[in-house]
Structure formats: structure tokens, C-alpha cells
């Protein structure tokens, strides 16, 4: 019996030791901390800009790319008791309510928010801070249409017409925030009533009959299936961003005088991306400093060429290529965040049944 007691004691002691080792040291002061930025795969920042931040603040930044925005936000929710990082960037207005309801953010209001128009400030309690915005729109390959002697489509309804059969590639809204944004645009345009009478479900049935292709994420759709990108895929229509044409201009050598791809301005949904300090961070001060950095002029001006999004802070100059080649839709197919919160999951479920199965 005595030996058993010793064994049990040893096991308990070991377990306690292991638990104690699990807790790392915490830093009160932001300096010297290493913070982890939990973000989606499309996050990018130019090296000098990040290095300058690290030198000035004394904070080291590690970037954890955790998949597409949807998957990344879900990961953050599932791990909220022991967060994967200190700051989250990349939750957008289609997913924001899911993150807020799960309570993954700490409230923080950066001073620089004063320079951000109210239209981007989606969370009244300042848990999520707007960083950038962009428009999700159908893009078309200009050369493909002139080669084939077909007029490009201009509206969502055009996409269901026979002359555009097997030309469109979209992203799965259950795995891609780009795809979800486009789904919401079609809901806004077609209505969400009884599917037997009309609305977005019959619209997607027509798209399906017209040979729409569904990819898991934006990268695959744009880089491999779209004919207007370097991947030279087979399809001339893709759900992408209003800022994609400037990206194609930059990729082309020598620089063309007109963008090789265009945007269907009547198919756009406005996407706002936000960041927040994750609840349970061991480095709250450093995390806040990093959110401040994301609203700084330097980072805001860096974003367009790194992530092809637009700065939310007023008065940040756009790079010349954006001024020259990007088209910003004057109006977009938007749905109120409250509606999105309420119906998003049902839309995705019904979309999956309508289009994929």
C-alpha cells in the first residue's frame, strides 16, 4: 500500500509540475513582448513597415495564418479560453457578429478611430476596429471577350444568360469570405422571400444550370480558374475584388495603358475588415499598440499594394496605380449587419443545398 501511495503522490506532483510549466511569464510593459497576430491567409505587410514598427515599439510580431477568414474566426472562437494570438485581424462585416457574440474581443478604442468615417465603425462597443475596406465584385477578362467577339456581361442577371454559360467561377461561401460576400450581394439583389415565388435561391439555380464553377477559396478561383490572371485558367468571369485590376496592371510587364481585367460595377458588395485585441491575451498593452499601428498612416498607406484593399483612415493617399486603374462602385448591394447576423448561417446552408449537392 505504501508503494501505491508514493506512486500516486509522484503522479500528482508531476501533473502539478506540468501544469506550472504550462504557464508562461507575463509582461506588464509592452516592450520586449512577442505578440502573435492571428489572421487569414491573405494578410500581408511590407517588410520595412513591420520592421520599423518592431524597432520603434520593441514588440516582436509573429503572424499566424490560420486559413480563410471564416475558418480563422471559427478557430478563434473555438480556442477563446486559450487564445491562439494576441491580436486578430481579418474578421469582416459578414462574420463580425459571430465573433462579437462569442465574445472573443476586449474593448479598445484607438485614438486614430477619430479619423475613420462612421460608416466603417460597425461595432458600437469598440471591440472590433475597422482597418480596411474593399468591394467584392465580378471581374472579367477583357481580352477573352474581345477574342471571342462577345460583349461582357454587366449585371447579375446577365450571368444566367446562355451566352455566358460555363464562364463564371465563384468561391464557396461556407469556406471563403469572398464567396460569402458575393452570396449576400445576390441576396440583396434578388430578395430573400419564398423560394417558390422568387428570390436568390432560384437565381442560384439558374446560375448552376448555366455552369457556375465553385472553388473552395479565392486563391484557387482567381489564380487557377480565371483566364485574366497569371494562371491563365479557362474561365473569363470570377468573383474577386474591385481592386484586382490594379493588381493585374502591376503584374503585367511592361505596364499597360488600360487594365487587362474589368469590374462589373453592378455586382459589388462592400467588405470592411476589422481587427481586435483577443480576450485572454498576456500582452494587452503590446496588442493595443499593434492595433494603433494598423491605423497609422504608414500601415494604412502600405495596405493597398500588399493586400489590395483601401484604407479606412481619411486622408491616406492611394498609390498612383490605384488612382489610375481602380474603379470604385458608386453604390453596392449591401445588407444590414443585423440581417446578416440573423440569416447568414441559413443562407449558407440553403446555398450549399441549392448549388453543391
Amino acid at each position: 500500500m505504501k508503494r501505491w501511495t508514493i506512486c500516486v503522490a509522484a503522479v500528482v506532483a508531476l501533473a502539478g509540475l506540468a501544469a506550472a510549466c504550462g504557464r508562461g511569464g507575463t509582461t506588464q510593459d509592452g516592450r520586449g513582448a512577442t505578440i502573435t497576430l492571428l489572421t487569414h491567409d491573405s494578410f500581408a505587410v511590407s517588410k520595412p513597415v513591420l520592421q520599423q514598427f518592431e524597432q520603434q515599439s520593441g514588440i516582436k510580431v509573429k503572424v499566424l495564418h490560420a486559413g480563410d477568414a471564416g475558418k480563422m474566426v471559427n478557430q478563434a472562437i473555438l480556442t477563446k479560453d486559450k487564445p491562439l494570438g494576441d491580436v486578430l485581424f481579418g474578421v469582416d462585416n459578414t462574420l463580425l457578429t459571430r465573433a462579437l457574440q462569442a465574445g472573443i474581443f476586449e474593448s479598445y478604442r484607438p485614438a486614430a478611430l477619430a479619423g475613420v468615417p462612421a460608416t466603417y465603425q460597425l461595432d458600437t462597443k469598440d471591440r472590433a476596429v475597422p482597418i480596411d475596406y474593399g468591394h467584392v465584385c465580378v471581374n472579367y477578362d477583357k481580352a477573352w471577350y474581345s477574342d471571342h467577339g462577345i460583349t461582357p456581361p454587366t449585371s447579375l442577371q446577365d450571368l444566367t444568360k446562355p451566352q455566358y454559360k460555363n464562364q463564371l467561377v465563384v468561391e464557396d461561401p461556407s469556406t471563403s469570405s469572398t464567396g460569402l460576400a458575393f452570396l449576400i450581394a445576390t441576396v440583396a439583389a434578388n430578395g430573400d422571400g419564398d423560394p417558390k415565388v422568387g428570390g436568390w435561391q432560384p437565381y442560384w439555380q439558374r446560375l448552376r444550370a448555366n455552369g457556375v464553377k465553385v472553388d473552395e477559396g479565392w486563391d484557387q478561383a482567381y489564380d487557377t480558374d480565371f483566364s485574366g490572371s497569371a494562371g491563365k485558367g479557362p474561365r473569363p468571369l470570377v468573383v474577386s475584388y474591385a481592386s484586382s485590376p490594379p493588381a493585374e496592371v502591376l503584374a503585367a510587364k511592361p505596364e499597360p495603358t488600360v487594365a487587362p481585367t474589368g469590374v462589373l460595377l453592378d455586382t459589388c458588395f462592400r467588405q470592411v475588415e476589422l481587427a481586435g485585441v483577443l480576450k485572454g491575451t498576456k500582452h494587452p498593452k503590446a496588442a493595443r499598440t499593434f492595433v494603433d499601428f494598423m491605423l497609422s498612416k504608414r500601415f494604412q498607406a502600405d495596405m493597398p499594394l500588399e493586400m489590395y484593399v483601401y484604407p479606412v483612415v481619411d486622408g491616406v493617399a492611394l498609390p498612383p496605380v490605384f488612382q489610375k486603374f481602380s474603379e470604385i462602385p458608386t453604390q453596392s448591394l449591401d445588407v444590414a449587419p443585423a440581417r446578416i447576423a440573423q440569416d447568414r448561417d441559413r443562407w449558407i446552408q440553403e446555398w450549399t443545398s441549392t448549388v453543391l449537392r
Partner: protein
Amino acid sequence: MTSPQPPTRRGPRLGGRVWRFATVAIPAAFLLVFFVYPVLAILGRGLVPRWSFDPEPVGRVLTDAGLRGVLWFSVWEAALSTLLTLAIGIPGAWALSRFAFPGRRAARAFVTVPFVLPTVVVGAAFTTIFGTDGSLLAILLAHAFFNTAVVVRTVGGLWSQLAGRSEDAARALGASPVRAFLHVTLPALRPAIVAAGAIVFLFCFTSFGIVLILGGPTRATLEVEIYRQTADQLQLGVAAALAVVQLLAVTAMLLVAGKLQGHRAVALALRPADAVARRARTAKERIALAVVLVGVLGFLAWPMAILVARSFGSDHGLTLDAYRSLDATGPGSALFVPPVHAIATSLRYALGAVVISVIIGGLASLAALRREGRAGRILDGALMIPLGTSAVTLGFGFLIALDRPPVDLRTSPWLVPIAQALVAIPFVVRTVVPLGRGVDPRLRDAAAVLGAAPARVWRAVDLPVLGPALALGAGFAAAISLGEFGATALIARPDNPTLPIAIFRLLGVPGAQNYHAAMALTTILMALTLVVVFAVEAVPGRFAARGARGSRG
């Protein structure tokens, strides 16, 4: 038990009783906390959402056209995969069990290799040929690639025991070879074919890694859909309902498979008698044999060869670039850690899973080996149940059950090893119990009569058999843990990916560099698994003899 007893009698001392209790109680407690409780949590979420019985979530699954489509796809892809596997496996069984030819043993060993490979490796290998666009053919071929060994071993095992005399008699009476096969051999093989088909169907119905990697967005089995509803959509209610459907379907299939096997015990001899194997006699036979061998072996070698070749590929010829890139990470890298860290993580988790499964499986085996222990027998059976539960369901159960008091393991580094151990424990028990049963009880009695204390008896008689058996079980557990994907995919954290998780992640991001890195990691995982499996295969050669000596007494 108050009166002192002579040591040679059965009545155990207090320490012995505590020990006996522990061999039952510890595995039982493990099973209750890490299996029964998560499964109850799934049933609770799926059937009793708001503390009242409400099959609404399950009903929604069965009435939603899309989700019903998932169930239907699981059924028909499994049926097609099974037919394809039989179509490839039966000729393979014929060639490998009926004929003697040079290299036969090596060919037989080779056929088994795909079966021990992790599903991620098989899926990744087939992306080299078909891409990830949801080609149905890719899924079916990958399933056939994976499961051919089951058919070759099961059907071949029986075939090599049919002496062939009935077939010879039929031929002598004038039947054509085809007629003799259809009317004499095939009916005799039927039980083995049905049994193998049932197992393959079950594997394909619960297929996860292969369909997730090769299926694209449009194709999903129940397993894949549970994962997607959880990881992509955070629809835990729908996922729970799907998991309930999956649990019911698998239980039903296991019952049917058990019935089918119960009709006639099928010989699953690993080394079938070579006696009936003969040289191919006629030219026709030789040609048929050559065609089948080249076809089957080529089918199995082809994806593995392309996989290894791709891992050395790059934009400029054959290089080691993909392997060199594995210890680097940086901006734009798909993984938080350099990919080599995934190797270390996998090995660490494998060690944890081995320790847990050997302790729990070993204790349970000891309980099961005590003939008088009815609790032991029940435990033995109960430990088989996790085997029937699909891995994704298990992982999902962990996710929703072990995240709050009384059991909050969500942040524990033991979470993944425990889940993997749960998958491995049945294999440990299956390995240890049959070998342990081989120990003649008279040996123990003899030792006791000669004056050995119980502990000494155990050390001298049981340990020499159980030790190697446990080592064998540990090897299986290590191989299972290294390749485990379904449960791990739901519970591993992205900052600590295992090899299969890292491979899946790399396959999901664009760029030739990431693809080559995925191929390199896949090759490493394949090599690690094969090293473990061959090390395990080498064990019984040395120790089975001891076990056999024990059984002969």
C-alpha cells in the same frame, strides 16, 4: 478474506485485490471520461438540444436535401469503391495465393503497404495525378488503392486453403476454366468476398482524409460534412446531428458485418499455407498471371512513385529544395511554424499516445486475460467500440464535451494524444490478449507449486509473453498516431500542427513551392510510418516463437 492464506492458493492479498480492481477500474474510467461522456455529449446536442427530447436537428439532417445528399453520396461512393476494390483485389488474391513465382513474398508484403499508409498520404499522392477538383474517379481509385490489401489478404487467405481439388475435378469433368471458377471456386470464396466487401464498405463510408483532400467543395461524406460544419461554419448543432446519424449508421453496419462474418469464420491467416501454390502451367496461365501481377502491383506502386518524385521536383529539375524549405518559415508561409516542427510534434504526440494506449490497453488486457473476470470480458468488448466510432465523430465529441468543467482539456497538450490513444487502444488489446491467452495456466500453477510468489510467477511466466506483445501493440499505436487525421483535424491547434495537419494545410494553399513542400512532408510521413510498421513486423518473428512455446506448454 481476513484469514491468512497460503501463497499458492487463489485468494489474493489486499495488494492483489487493489491491483485487480485497478486493471478494470482504470481502463473503465478512461473509457467513461474520454469516450462515453463525449458520445453522450454528441447525443445530447443532436437529440436533446434544450434539455428536452427533440429530434429536430436530426430530422433536419434527414429532410434537408443537401445533407441527405451527403448521406446518399457516402453510401454510393462506398458501394462503387467496394466494387472497384474487389475488381482489383480478387485477381490480385488469385495471383498471390495460387501461384508460386520468384519474388512472391516480396510482392505480398508490398500489397500491404498502402493499407498502413495514413489517409493523408494516399490523398496527397492522388492529387499528383488528379488535382483537388473533386474528381470522382480519384476518390474511387484512392479508396481502391488503400483497401486492395484487405481483399487480397482476406480472399487470398481462404483461396490458398481451398486445395483446388474441386476445381480440378470440375475441369477433369470437362468444365471450362471460367465455368469451373464461377461454379466451384467462387461459391467457396463467397464468405471471404462478402466479409472483405463489408470491411471495405465500412472504411469507404467513413472515409475522411481522402474525400476531404480529393473531393473539392462539391463532394462530402458524412465525416467530411461533420468536419466542415464544425471548422468552416461553426454549426455545432448540425454537426452533432450528423454525428448521431453517423454513429447509428456505423453501428448498423458493424452489426451487419458481424452477422456476415458470423456465418462462417473466415481465415485471416497472415501467412497462408504455401502448399497449394504452384507454378503457372500453361502459356495462357503465365500470361494471365503476368498481366494481373503487373496490373495490380503497378496500380499500387504508381501513386507512391509519383509522390516521391514530386517531392524532389521544382521549377528547375530534380532538387532537394522542397526538403530544404521545410525548416524555414516567414511572411507568406502557410504554416505558423517551420514544417519540420510538425515532425517533432507528431513524434511527441505519438509518444504520448503510445504511453497512454499501452498503459490503458495493457491494464485492460490483463483484466480480459483473467478468465474469471466477467468485468474484464465486458471491458474487452467495450474497448472495441471506439474502433467502430469514426475518428471525426470522436474528435467532435472531444471538442464539445471536454471544453468545460468537469473535464476541461481544451488547452491541454494531452488532448490530441488521448484522442489518438482512444483509436489505438483496441489494437493494443487485440494484439496482447490473443498472445496472452497462449500462456498455459499450468505453467503458472507449476511455478506456484515450486514456491514462486505471485509477483515472481507473473514475472517469470507472463511477462516474457506480454512484454513483446505490448511492444507490438506500442508499434501499432505509434503508426496509428502518426497518421491519425480525423480526430486530430478537429482538435489540434494551428500553432502546433501534426504532420497530416501540416500536409493538409500546405495542400490547401496555392503555389508550387507549398505543393512541393507538402509532397516532401508526405514522403517523410510515409517513410516514418513504414519504418514503424516494418519494425513492428520484425518483432513477432523473434517473439512469436516464444509465445508459441508458451502455448504449447
